[in-house]
Structure formats: structure tokens, C-alpha cells
């Protein structure tokens, strides 16, 4: 059975997350078992598309408390939750995360371009897989709170729809 591209290169995603959050925010990530966020848990969700030899939607999910703490660590100053700077900070972190995934895929012969990030606020994080898509996600505990990273992939041309 051919291993899917997501599973085959998942370590690039986890390695990127560990490197990026350590270098930008000084936090170490501890992987924990958590299938989904609590119902109605408010969170920030950043999505970046990686398109090329793979077609991935890469996401970063941060519960509100984690987002506020991580954004402050990254920026070096407190950011009000409703400020445009909050989306900017989360977007830039996800941009750096996506860039590092791209860099780690490159020596494996997997060439991609990355999109600009899209940042949303949501309640509850549930990965709804569809036919012909593969996905993988994991949850981390950090000193600043919980967070998720994940990838959804489309087998056909174009992104997950």
C-alpha cells in the first residue's frame, strides 16, 4: 500500500512546528492526545495552502488564551484580542510555520509554493474529512496553552473542497 503524501512527510510538519515555536516564542511543544477542541471553545485558526508536488491545506489552531499568550511572546508586546494586530501576529506565525514546512520538504524532492495565510476565529475545531482527502492532525500542550496543527490533502488537482 502506497503511503499517502501526508503521512509520508508528516514529520516535516511536526519538526517545523517544534522549530518555529521554539525559536519565535521560546516554547517547547509536548504532543498530547486530544481529538477535538471542546464544543464552543473559541479559537484562532490559520490556514496556509501548499501547492505543487503536494496540495495541502496546512492549519494552526490556537484556543483564544493560547493565541493571546503566543502572540504576545512573538510580538514582544501585549496585543488586545480584538485588535487587527492579533490576526496579523497569528498570520505571520503561520506564515513562518508554512515556510519552514516548505523548506523541510524541499530536500526530500517535494517542491511547493505557499499561499498568504488566512486567519479566522472559530468555535470548536473538528476536522471533517471528505472522500478523496487525507488528513492528519495533532495536539500539543505548551507552557502557553494548547494548540493544534494539521494537514488536509486533496488527491485531485486543486485544494480540499
Amino acid at each position: 500500500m502506497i503511503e499517502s503524501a501526508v503521512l509520508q512527510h508528516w514529520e516535516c510538519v511536526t519538526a517545523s512546528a517544534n522549530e518555529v515555536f521554539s525559536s519565535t516564542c521560546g516554547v517547547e511543544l509536548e504532543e498530547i492526545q486530544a481529538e477535538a477542541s471542546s464544543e464552543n471553545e473559541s479559537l484562532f485558526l490559520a490556514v496556509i495552502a501548499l501547492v505543487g508536488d503536494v496540495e495541502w491545506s496546512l492549519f494552526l489552531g490556537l484556543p483564544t488564551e493560547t493565541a493571546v499568550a503566543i502572540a504576545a511572546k512573538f510580538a514582544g508586546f501585549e496585543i488586545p484580542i480584538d485588535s487587527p494586530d492579533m490576526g496579523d501576529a497569528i498570520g505571520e506565525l503561520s506564515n513562518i510555520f508554512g515556510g519552514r514546512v516548505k523548506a523541510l520538504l524541499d530536500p526530500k524532492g517535494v517542491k511547493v509554493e505557499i499561499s498568504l495565510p488566512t486567519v479566522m476565529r472559530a468555535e470548536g475545531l473538528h476536522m471533517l474529512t471528505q472522500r478523496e482527502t487525507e488528513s492528519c492532525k495533532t495536539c500539543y500542550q505548551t507552557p502557553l496553552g494548547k494548540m493544534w496543527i494539521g494537514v488536509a490533502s486533496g488527491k485531485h488537482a486543486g485544494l480540499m473542497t
Partner: protein
Amino acid sequence: MEIQALVVDDSGIMRKLVIRSLLESKLAQFMFTEAKDGADALEAFKSNPIDMIFVDWNMPNMNGIDFVKEVRKIEKDHVPVVMITTESTMGKIDEALNTAGIDCFIVKPFTAETLQVKLGPLFDKLTEPKKSGGFFSKLAANMS
């Protein structure tokens, strides 16, 4: 002497981080003009005396590479350009340095120490007397 620096990034947070890191690096005394994308930056470049540019790659409206190519068409003397970006593959670095004429390439994330290490040699090279035109030659002349 002050360096008039143009900082270009679609993230306001990142522009603040670049400015803060440059100030902490103490490489020079900087005064800053900010722009949110390549098109905005091109207008700022045409309207203000700019000695040095710090620019992101991936931005809406006009990306960093296209902006630098436009700068190279209209500059009177060579303006040093430092690209600060998430791009880090050899192909992209080669494109920036050899095709677009970027002088220095820094991968995000970075610290003030990173800037000191990466920009130090650039400042040394640019202040060698008679080796470059424009602002840095004047800086070298003032220092000697």
C-alpha cells in the same frame, strides 16, 4: 549619520519586529519609513530619500522581488536591499541574490543578533571607500 531605511512587509507586526531588531542591533542610527506592500513601497521610494531597504518577499499587490526590480530601474545610485522572508530554498535564494540583485538574504525568524551577523559584513563592504556609490560612500568619507 542616520540611515533612512524603508521597511516593507504586509504584516504590521513584522515591520515592528524588523524595526525593533535593527534598533537593538546598533549597526547604525536608523530612521524608518514603512510600506505594506511592493506597490506602496515603490511610491515611498519615489517620494522619500531612502538609503537602505528591508523587504519581505511574499506580499499582495506587488511582491518583494518585483519591487526590487522596479527600484533597480529607477535608482540613481545602488541602494542596498536586504530581503527578510520565510523563503529559504536554494532556488529562491539564488533568484533573489543573482536575478533580482538583493544584497543580503535573511530567513525569518530572526533576532537582533542575526541582523548583526548577517548585516555586519554588508555594512563593512559598503563603507569601503570608493567601492560603492551613494549614501554608503558618503558615510565612509565622513568616517575617514
